Every structure is written in structure tokens, then in C-alpha cells.
């Protein structure tokens, strides 16, 4: 029997699809990204999610931190990576199987980047299911998706601006010019204007009968976009089905290509990043490079980990945090260097206990890892380390973070901001 939510979601989707069919614009929206040095506006920094900023700090110690229990509502849930815009750090506490969405109030918090004072925390009773994105430049609208399929827009003062009922558990949105792209757990890619208007919905990639399947049939990741279009990846939860489906669309929602990748050691779509000549996709513990025009596979790199995080990319290398941090050649996927993560295998011999996993920001020849950085050319430590006392000394309850990063950093020109599974939000400058 369908739940009310499923019926609503299905109805809503049909309506939106109809709109798209009638005349969704296929022209590319204006999307100049000015590469700010004072902001990290979306999880992947830019629409391509390269995770590459023009500048970042050259050293740092902990400047301030906001503990998870110090706010109301508290910063519980799986903490998203932060985004930074207009002098404010935003982060969300995502509902998980441990912080169940039906009895957990997800926080969305705004913290003053300079002082660390908490500006506001909004609670979402239905549970948030992805991290925040800031859209619209100075207006500073923070957009975040919920388990109930609602995409919420909140002003820089914490007041609700609009909400769009898209249906399905929503992932982390990305901003492309004045629009947002977000995937839903029902297997759809949505294009939404920064004013909350629905532009188009691309239908689920799998068989239609999956509409009648489980409530949350699909694993998602954050879409990425460039001037050619938008890229998405979905994995049906049903293990008998295909592995990860990666899709390329134009900005009007027309599918350009579709590729199925069979990730070794896991099929979760853990992240995308696109450049002029390649779309990089992490699937389970494997990194792929695809042709962004055809979806054709160029190379793959099996890390051996059960999971690897979203890739970042500079002119020469792709950086991926799995158990270890890897730098791979963009040309052939060959390993250029690694930072060995010395965390011991857990009792069940799974090597993913306290792995890196986070998207590793890259800026001006440095790759940022937890509270420190390594040289992008050879992986040597510039500062910080896994043995940093403040990072390690905490009464970890590892299970909820099993397949999530312990610490997720982003950078601006002069600081690292990170969320930490135990320490909350931290500024290193």
C-alpha cells in the first residue's frame, strides 16, 4: 500500500514532468561563478564541485569551536560539511538510521565566521537529509532538503523564505547561477529556481514499477553542473538491480547520456566532480573518470576501501579520501601519492574505521585534510596530523560515523572551517 507521502510525491512528480514536457527552457542559465576567496557556498565549492578554491590558509591552529551540545536545538545528527558565505558558516545535522527522522529534530545552524558566535539554529522536525547550499549571491539564501521531500529556503536571518515540495528524501543541492539542482531518493533530478519555482524534473532512471517500491528506493549524491549541463548519479537500493547509474543532462532536463558503473566494494554514489575533459565519480570504494560528453569510461581506481568520498580536482590530479587520502593522475588514474591513514582495522576487519572519506579541499598547491594540510604535489604534511590530540581525544561512539567522515573541512582564503563528529564546528586559522 502506498503511503500518503508516496502518493503525493508521485502526483507532484507527474505534474512537474508535464510542465517540463510543455516547454522547459533548454537554454543554459547565466551561471558565472566568481571563485570567491571569502566563501565556500556549496558543498563542492563551485557548480562543478571541483573543491578547488583560489586560496587557503598556509598554517593554522584552532581559532574557535562550537560544541554539539551547546546550541538549542543541539547540533546532533550526522553533521554535514559546512558551507561559508557572507561571513557566516552554515551546517546541518542530517537524520540517519541512528538519528531517526521520525523522532529527531534536525538542526540548521548559522555561526559567525569571525567570532564563532551562534547566530541562529533552526530545527526541522521531519529531519534533514542533506547538507546546505547558498544560492543567490549577496541575498544569502540557504537551501536545504528534508526527508519529507521539501526543499527549504532560509534567509540569512534564519527566517523561512520558501519551501518546495519535491517529494522523496532530498540530497544536498548544488547551485548553478540562479537555480538549484537536487536529487531525490525517489530517483529524480530536480531543477528549482532560487525563488523556489520548479523548472523541471528529470524522471527516475530505473524501471517505472519502482514507483510502487519502497519509500526510499534510491541512493543519491549531489549533482554537479557546467555549461554543458548537469550530471547526476543514483543507485537503486535493490541489490539485484543495476549498480550506479550516472546520467548527463542538458540544462533543459534532456538526457544526454546514461552510464552504468559497477563499483567494487560498494555501490553508493559518493560524489561527482566535473572538469572540461572528465567527469569524476566515486562509487563505493572506486573512483572513475568518464567522458563528460558521452559517459564513456576512461579509467578506474579501486581503493580497496568499502567507501571513498567525493573527489576534488586541480590541473594535474584528482584527490579522494577513502581509508587513505589519494592523489591520482587525471590522465590515467595512476596513484601519485597517498597519505596513509594509520587507524587500525576494526574488529570485523573492516578498514573503514575512522577513515578520511571527506571531500578534500584543494587550494594553491595544498590539499586540506582534517585540521591540517598536505602538499598537493607530493602529499608531504605541511601542518596538522591524524594524531593531533584535540582531534583524536574524544569519546567516540564510532558506529554512527562508520561510513561518514570524522571531520569535513572547507577553506576560505584565511581559514579552514570544519564539522567534526564529536567536536561540532571548528575554525582553524
Amino acid at each position: 500500500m502506498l503511503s500518503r507521502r508516496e502518493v503525493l510525491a508521485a502526483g507532484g512528480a507527474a505534474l512537474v514532468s508535464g510542465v517540463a514536457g510543455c516547454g522547459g527552457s533548454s537554454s543554459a542559465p547565466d551561471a558565472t561563478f566568481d571563485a570567491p576567496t571569502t566563501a565556500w557556498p556549496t558543498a563542492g565549492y563551485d557548480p562543478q564541485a571541483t573543491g578547488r578554491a583560489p586560496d587557503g590558509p598556509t598554517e593554522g591552529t584552532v581559532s574557535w569551536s562550537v560544541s554539539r551540545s551547546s546550541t538549542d536545538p543541539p547540533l546532533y545528527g550526522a553533521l554535514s560539511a559546512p558551507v561559508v558565505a557572507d561571513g557566516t558558516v552554515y551546517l546541518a545535522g542530517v537524520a540517519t538510521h541512528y538519528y531517526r527522522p521520525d523522532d529527531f529534530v534536525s538542526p540548521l545552524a548559522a555561526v559567525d565566521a569571525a567570532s564563532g558566535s551562534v547566530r541562529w539554529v533552526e530545527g526541522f522536525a521531519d529531519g534533514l537529509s542533506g547538507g546546505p547550499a547558498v544560492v543567490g549571491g549577496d541575498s544569502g539564501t540557504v537551501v536545504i532538503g528534508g526527508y519529507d521531500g521539501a526543499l527549504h529556503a532560509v534567509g540569512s536571518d534564519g527566517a523561512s523564505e520558501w519551501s518546495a515540495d519535491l517529494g522523496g528524501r532530498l540530497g544536498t543541492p548544488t547551485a548553478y547561477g540562479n537555480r538549484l539542482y537536487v536529487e531525490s531518493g525517489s530517483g529524480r533530478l530536480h531543477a528549482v529556481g532560487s525563488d523556489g519555482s520548479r523548472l523541471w524534473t528529470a524522471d527516475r532512471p530505473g524501471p517505472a514499477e519502482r514507483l510502487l517500491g519502497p519509500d526510499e528506493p534510491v541512493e543519491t549524491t549531489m549533482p554537479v553542473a557546467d555549461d554543458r549541463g548537469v550530471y547526476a548519479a543514483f543507485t537503486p537500493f535493490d541489490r539485484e538491480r543495476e549498480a550506479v547509474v550516472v546520467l548527463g543532462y542538458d540544462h533543459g532536463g534532456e538526457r544526454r547520456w546514461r552510464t552504468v558503473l559497477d563499483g567494487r566494494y560498494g555501490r553508493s554514489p559518493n560524489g561527482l566532480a566535473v572538469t572540461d575533459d572528465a567527469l569524476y565519480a566515486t562509487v563505493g570504494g572506486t573512483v572513475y573518470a568518464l567522458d563528460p560528453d558521452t559517459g564513456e569510461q576512461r579509467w578506474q581506481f579501486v581503493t580497496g576501501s568499502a567507501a571513498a568520498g567525493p573527489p576534488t580536482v586541480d590541473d594535474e590530479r584528482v584527490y579522494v579520501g577513502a581509508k587513505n587520502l589519494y592523489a591520482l593522475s587525471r590522465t590515467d588514474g595512476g596513484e601519485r601519492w597517498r597519505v596513509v591513514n594509520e587507524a587500525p582495522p576494526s574488529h570485523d576487519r573492516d578498514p573503514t574505521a575512522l577513515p578520511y572519506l571527506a571531500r578534500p579541499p584543494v587550494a594553491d598547491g595544498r590539499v586540506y585534510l582534517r585540521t591540517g594540510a598536505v602538499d598537493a604535489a607530493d602529499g608531504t604534511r605541511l601542518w596538522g596530523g591524524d594524531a593531533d590530540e584535540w582531534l583524536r581525544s574524544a569519546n567516540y561512539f564510532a558506529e554512527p560515523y562508520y561510513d561518514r567522515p570524522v571531520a569535513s573541512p572547507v577553506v576560505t582564503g584565511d581559514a579552514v572551517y570544519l564539522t567534526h563528529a564529536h567536536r561540532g564546528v571548528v575554525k582553524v586559522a
Partner: protein
Amino acid sequence: MTDAGKRPTRRRLLASLGSAAAVGAAGCLGTRSERTPTSGECPEYDPVEPATTDWRGVLGPATNTGAVAAEAVPEGDLTIDWTVPVETYVGHHVPVVADDTVYVHDMDDELSAVDAETGERVWTRPLTDPEPAPAVGDGTLVVVTREATHAFDAATGDRRWKREGLGGGIFGASPIVAGDTVYVQSGVATHALARSTGETRWRAATGFPSDSTPAVDGDTVYTAGDDTYVRALDTADGTERWRAKTSARIGCNVSVVEGTVLVGTGAGTVLGFDAETGEERWRYRLEPRRAGGERRPRQPETIATDGSRVYVAADDRLVTLALADGTRCWDSRSYAGSYASGIAVGAGTVFVPTQDDSGGAMTVLDAATGNTRQELAGDERQRFDIGPSVAGGGVYFAGRSAVVRLS
């Protein structure tokens, strides 16, 4: 006190009866020892005679070939010489043999040395949670337990040293003793320890655990593991000479012979690399197995080689390839591996654990053709699922609360 001395006649009788029954059963069910003939491209069988007559590690020599000199291999049909009870509710691992002594633990709380000729216990000592197979070299016996690596005087059982924190698991890599160094895969690194003191000579971390027993040849140790790479490390300081990327975790041992390094990956691929350069010489894709309507890669568990053939135990198969180019030569579909099964080869003969109705039989195969020379069934007292080890004219197995010698 020796069990062999008390009841030899009865055991020999049972063993020979069991053998006869197994042969009969095999005759009825032709699939038991079915072999797949080659397409005819398999090069001539021309093995290299190794010098070793002991079985010092889980797969014999430090090169992990599972191969021994012809003089170490018993001729003709095997019968049980003696059986020594090693009572345990946990399990056994592969016995190792050196200087006419067999070393075995009970995976629980005891480590024993047994006289290879008589089956008499030489010494027994308590040891908590021994896990993979021991290794022995130059009078030092090395055992990895859940929490530590231990070294004992092989002659007396007296403790030489102990390294806390360098533990292993039942499915994990076994230690290797080569020259004056002990190699242990523990945590997320390969550890080279001084054989005499246990001090760390060097440590090479990949960030991943390894269940793959490393192989040592000359001044190079070859390693693999969940990291997916095969690496050649300088035994002196751990410096990486080369590394080769594969597409999956490597759980089976590394083996090296005649300048070729052999591994099998979790993707069901067997690979041969040039030991000097790391260049891939050939690869062979094992036929996937069908499970629940899906085709899954066959998992290589053990690799052995006699310098002419490569023997790969993968789930329910023994697949034999030509060392020179990876051409498939023959298969045996009666292979029945457990958590600690191996392959032994010598004098043109291959010894493997196989299955029968009682569970835990063993089979002797002709290395050149794959033809079955002998099958010996297990019974309620003795199984042959842990092993084999071949040394000094005897074949050793463990299983079902006992260690047995055949010749």
C-alpha cells in the same frame, strides 16, 4: 605419552577402510574428481626441483610455493602413520614441520611440538589465542596470536620474545621466517622483525589490513592485501622496488618462483608479474561462480607452484595454469577448502583437501595430468581439511581434534 603407541593398528585399519570406501564412492559419482581437459595449448610439464625438505611456513618455503623436494614426498598410496589428538573446540591451522618436528596449535590455549617420526609430543606450552599457521626457521618458532607475535625456542618451547600489538586473525596472513628476519602482516602495515630479538627492523604501512601471507625471495619481500597492490620491498629497509595495481583486494598468499610473482585477486583474476620489474606477464580470469542467479568472481584462496604449473585453490576448484603464460592446464572440481586449507606439491604429485560425504577427505593428484592417484576419506575421528604439509617423507593434516601423518 603417545597416542600412536597405544592404538596404531586400529587406526591403520580404519584409515584403509575409509580409503576403500572413498574410492568406491568416487566411482559411483563421476563428478567428484571430474577434470576439465585443456584445449591442448598447455606447455609440457617441466617442474623445477626445489631444495627444501621441510615445511617451514603455511605454504612451505618462504617463497610460499607449497613445493618440496622429491625426497620429501612419500611414494605410493598413503596410509596413516600416526594420529596425535589436539583437542580443541575452536579449530586448527596448518601444521609446520622442521628438523623432524611438527608444530601445531589449537587456536585456543596450547602450542605443541610433536616428533615427526613417532608422533610423541616433544613439548607443550600454554599460548592464548594462536590464530594463523606458525612459521619456523633456524630454531625459532614464530606464532601470531590475536594480540601479539611470539617467538619460541623450537627445540624446547621456551619463550624468546613477544611483541604486543602485532596480532593477527584466523583468516589472516601467516608469519614468514626468512634468514634473520620475521615478516608479519598486522594492523595496517607489513612488519619486519629481527628474528633474534623481535625488534622492528622496518615497517611499511599501506593503511589497510592484509590477509595475504607475503613471500620472500633473496633480498625482496613481496606483499599484497586489501590495498589491491602487489609490492616488492627491499628486505633490508622496506624500500619499495616496484608496485603493481590490481582491481581488487588480494586475500590469497603471494607466491614467487623462477622470477615470477603470483597472486590472485578478489575479482577472480590470477596474475603473474616479473619479479624484477613488476611488469605484468599474464593474467587468467577464473570462471565466475553462479550464486543466487548472479555470477560472482571465484575467490582465489591459495596459490602454489612447482615452477612449471600454478595451482590456484578458488572456492570449490583447484585450477592449474602454466607458469610461463597463464594457460589453463587442468581443473579439479573436488577441491574443498576450509579457512586453513592449502596445496602441497612435489615429485610430480599434488596433495589437496577434497570433499566426501563425511567431509574432510584428501586427494593425491598427478601434477602433469590432474588424474587422481588416491583418495582418502575422512571419518568421525580424522578429517583432512586443514593442511596439507609435506616434509621429510610424510604428509601432515589437521582436522577434527587431531593431527595426522601419512606416508
